[in-house]
C-alpha cells in the first residue's frame, strides 16, 4: 500500500483553492479549509499550482510495435506522464498495423506493464490502412483492449463507400471513426500548405480544400447514417466553418486541434527545416486564428497532440525526403497555456474540459478518466505551475525521439506532477523530497 498523499492549497481547475487527500488511488477528501490527513501522508505544497484531472490524449503515436527506434510504449508513456497525461490513445499505424485483436491487445497489455499512463489502442478502420477492406472492428472492440476509437490516421479513408460502412458499422459498439481528412488525389506529393509560402519555396502544395472537402463529405455521411465522427487534427479556417455548420445541424461530430496548429504557421517552413514538416501542414495565421477561435467557442472539442516521434535520420535530411510529424506530449500544456489561457480565450476549467473530460468521453473511457476532482474519483491528477517559464530543449524530452519544432521557444508554464491512480508518474524535482 502506498502512503496517502495530501495536495495542499492547489487551485482546482484554476479557480478554487482546496486541498485533496488521496488514499489507495482514490480522492478521499476535498476541502477548502483544513484537511484531516493521516500522520504518514506525503504532503505536497501546491500553493500557486493549478490542479486538473489527468489529461487524456486522443491522438498519440507510440510507434510500438515496429518502429521502436522512434518510440516505444515505455518511452512514449514516460513522455506522456511528463506532459501531464494519464491516458493516451495509441494510433493504429504501427508495423504490423493495429487492425486485429491480437495487435491491439499486445499494445494494451504492454501499456499496462509499463504502468505510466493508461494506453488505449486505436484500431485501424481498414485492413493494413489500405482503405479497401474494413478491419475486424468488432473483434478489436470486444478484445481486452476494448477499442472504441478507429482510425486509419496517417491515411485518409477516402473511399466514400468504405467510410460510410465504417461509420455505420462502428455504431454496433458505440465506436467512433476518427478521420484523417486528406483527399489523396489533391495532395499527391504535397509538402506544405499551398499558398504564398509554397509558391515562393517551390514546394508542392497541400491545399486547405483537400482537408475541407473530406470533412464536408464525412459530416454529411455521419449525419446521413446517424453515426459518430471525430475529425483528426483539424487545421484550416474552412474546416472550422464546416464543423460549426455540421454541429448546428445536429450532426454528431467532434474535432481535434493540435498544439502546433495553435502556435505555428507556414512561415516556419522558410528555412526548409524538416522539423516543421507535419501532416496536415502548418497553415496560415488566419487559419491559426480560426482554430483558436473554434477551440474557444467549442466548435473544436478537444486538444490532442498528434505526438509523432521520428528518429533523427528521418529529419536530418532534405525537406522532401523527411518524415512528417513532430513530438508534442511534453509541450502540449505549455502551448495551450500560451495560446489559449494567457490570451484569455480559455480558462483552466476549459482546458480540463477539452484535454481531459471530453477526450475521455469521445474515446468512451469516461468511466476511467476525465472525471471531476471530487471524492470517490480515481486520483488522476495533473499539477501545473502556470508561472514557471521554460525554454523547450528537444533532446531533454523523455521521448526516444527529438523531433520537436519548439526548441528554443519559451513556454509560460509546465507540468510539475502527474498522478495516475494516486501514484506519481512524473514529479518535478521540487517534490522529490516529499516522497523520499
Amino acid at each position, binding site marked *: 500500500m502506498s502512503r496517502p498523499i495530501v495536495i495542499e492549497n492547489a487551485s482546482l481547475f484554476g479557480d478554487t483553492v482546496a486541498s485533496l487527500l488521496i488514499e489507495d488511488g482514490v480522492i478521499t477528501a476535498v476541502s477548502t479549509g483544513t484537511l484531516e490527513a493521516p500522520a504518514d501522508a506525503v504532503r505536497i505544497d501546491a500553493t500557486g499550482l493549478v490542479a486538473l484531472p489527468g489529461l487524456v490524449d486522443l491522438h498519440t503515436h507510440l510507434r510500438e510495435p515496429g518502429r521502436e527506434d522512434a518510440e516505444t510504449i515505455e518511452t512514449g508513456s514516460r513522455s506522456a506522464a511528463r506532459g501531464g497525461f494519464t491516458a493516451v490513445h495509441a494510433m493504429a499505424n504501427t508495423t504490423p498495423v493495429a487492425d486485429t485483436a491480437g495487435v491491439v491487445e499486445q499494445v494494451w497489455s504492454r501499456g499496462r506493464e509499463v504502468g505510466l499512463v493508461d494506453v488505449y489502442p486505436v484500431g485501424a478502420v481498414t485492413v493494413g490502412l489500405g482503405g479497401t477492406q474494413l478491419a475486424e472492428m468488432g473483434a478489436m472492440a470486444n478484445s481486452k483492449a476494448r477499442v472504441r476509437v478507429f482510425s486509419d490516421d496517417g491515411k485518409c479513408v477516402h473511399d466514400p463507400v468504405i467510410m460510410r460502412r465504417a461509420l455505420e458499422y462502428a455504431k454496433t459498439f458505440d465506436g467512433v471513426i476518427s478521420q484523417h481528412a486528406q483527399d489523396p488525389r489533391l495532395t499527391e506529393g504535397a509538402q506544405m500548405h499551398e*499558398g504564398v509560402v509554397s509558391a*515562393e519555396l*517551390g514546394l508542392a*502544395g497541400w491545399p486547405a480544400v483537400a482537408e475541407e472537402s473530406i470533412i464536408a463529405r464525412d459530416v454529411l455521411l455521419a449525419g446521413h447514417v446517424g453515426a459518430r465522427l471525430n475529425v483528426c487534427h483539424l487545421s484550416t479556417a474552412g474546416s472550422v466553418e464546416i464543423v460549426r455548420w455540421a454541429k448546428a445541424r445536429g450532426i454528431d461530430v467532434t474535432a481535434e486541434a493540435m498544439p502546433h496548429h495553435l502556435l505555428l504557421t507556414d512561415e516556419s517552413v522558410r528555412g526548409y527545416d524538416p522539423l516543421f514538416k507535419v501532416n496536415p501542414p502548418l497553415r496560415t495565421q488566419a487559419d491559426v486564428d480560426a482554430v483558436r477561435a473554434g477551440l474557444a467557442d467549442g466548435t473544436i472539442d478537444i486538444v490532442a497532440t498528434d505526438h509523432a516521434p521520428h528518429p533523427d*535520420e528521418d529529419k536530418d535530411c*532534405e*525537406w*522532401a*525526403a523527411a518524415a512528417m510529424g513532430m513530438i508534442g506530449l511534453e509541450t502540449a500544456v505549455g502551448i495551450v497555456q500560451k495560446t489559449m489561457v494567457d490570451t484569455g480565450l480559455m480558462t483552466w476549467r476549459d482546458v480540463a474540459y477539452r484535454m481531459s473530460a471530453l477526450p475521455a468521453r469521445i474515446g468512451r473511457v469516461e468511466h476511467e478518466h476525465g472525471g471531476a476532482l471530487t471524492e470517490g474519483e480515481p486520483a488522476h491528477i495533473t499539477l501545473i505551475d502556470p508561472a514557471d517559464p521554460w525554454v523547450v530543449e528537444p533532446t531533454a524530452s523523455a521521448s526516444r525521439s527529438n523531433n520537436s519544432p519548439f526548441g528554443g521557444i519559451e513556454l509560460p508554464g509546465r507540468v510539475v506532477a502527474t498522478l495516475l491512480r494516486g501514484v506519481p508518474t512524473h514529479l518535478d524535482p521540487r517534490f522529490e523530497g516529499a516522497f523520499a
Partner: protein
Amino acid sequence: MRHLLSTQDLSREDAILILDTSAQMAATQEREVRKLPTLRGKTVVNLFFEDSTRTRISFEAAAKRLSADVINFSAKGSSVSKGESLKDTALTLQAMGADAVVVRHWASGAADRLATSGWMHGSVLNAGDGTHQHPTQGLLDAFTMRRHLVADPAGADLAGLTVAIVGDVLHSRVARSNVYLLHTLGARVVLVAPPTLVPIGIEPWPCEVVHTLDQAIESYDIDALMMLRVQRERMGGGGAAYFPSTEEYSRLYGLDGDRMRRLPDHAIIMHPGPMNRGLEISAEAADSPRSVIVEQVANGVAVRMAALYLLLAGEEGDQ
C-alpha cells in the same frame, strides 16, 4: 558572398556586381589563353543528385578556367530510392576539403539545407533545387539581356525593360529565379501560362500574369521573351495533366514565326534549354537572328566563373 542560394537574397548592388564581374570573365574568354590562375588551390565539387549534363559541364568549365580543382560527384537518388543521405554526402565533402559545393538536387531547399545545417563549411552554390531556384540561370539570363538591350551595360541595371516568361511557371526554378532578380534589377516581368501552371499564392510575386501568349504580345512592348521548357510528365494525356494536349499548348503558348514577327524589332528570344522544338518554340524562332539561346550557354560559363570568384576569393569567412 558566402553562399549563392536564391536570387531573392541578392540586392541590386550584389546583382550588378555579379553581372559586372561576369562581363570581365566573359572578356577573358575571348582571349587565346582562357585559363586564369585565380582559384588555384581551391576545390570545387559538383554535387549532382539530378542528371543535368549541361549545367554540370558549364560549372565544370567555369571552375577549370579559374584553375580550381574540380571533383564531380554524382549522387543518384530520389525521394523514392533515397540512396546516400544528403547529410552523409555533405560530411564526405567536408572531409575531402571542398571549398565550394555546386549542388543540383531534385528537392526544393536542398541547397539551403546544405548551407545552413552545419554539416559542412564550404560555400554552397545552388545549381537548381527542385522547383525552387536556379540563381545562376537567372543571372545569366539577366546578363544576356543587359548585353543586348542596355546601351551602356557596365554598372547598369535593367530598368525600363519588359520581360515575358512563358510556360510552366508552377514547376520552374528558372521562372522563380528570374522573377525576383529581374524585379530587383528594375525590369517589368510578365508571366504567361495557363492557370493550371501558375502557382496558387503567386500574388506577392513582383510580376504580372496573363494567360495567353497572344495577349502578352498585344498588351506589352516585350524586350525579351523567354520560353520555358515543357516537361514531358506535365503534358496532356494522363489524368493529372496540366493541359489537354501538346497541340493545344503549342497553339496557345508556343512561339512560332508568326508570333515572333509581332514582337518589337529589337526583342530577343531566350530559352534555358534544352528545347522541345515544335512544342514551346518552333525551329524558325529558335534559329532566328533574334534568338540568343546559344549565347545564353556561353554566358552561363562567364556568370558561373563570376559566382565562383565572388564566393571563393576573399578571406575565409568574408561576407
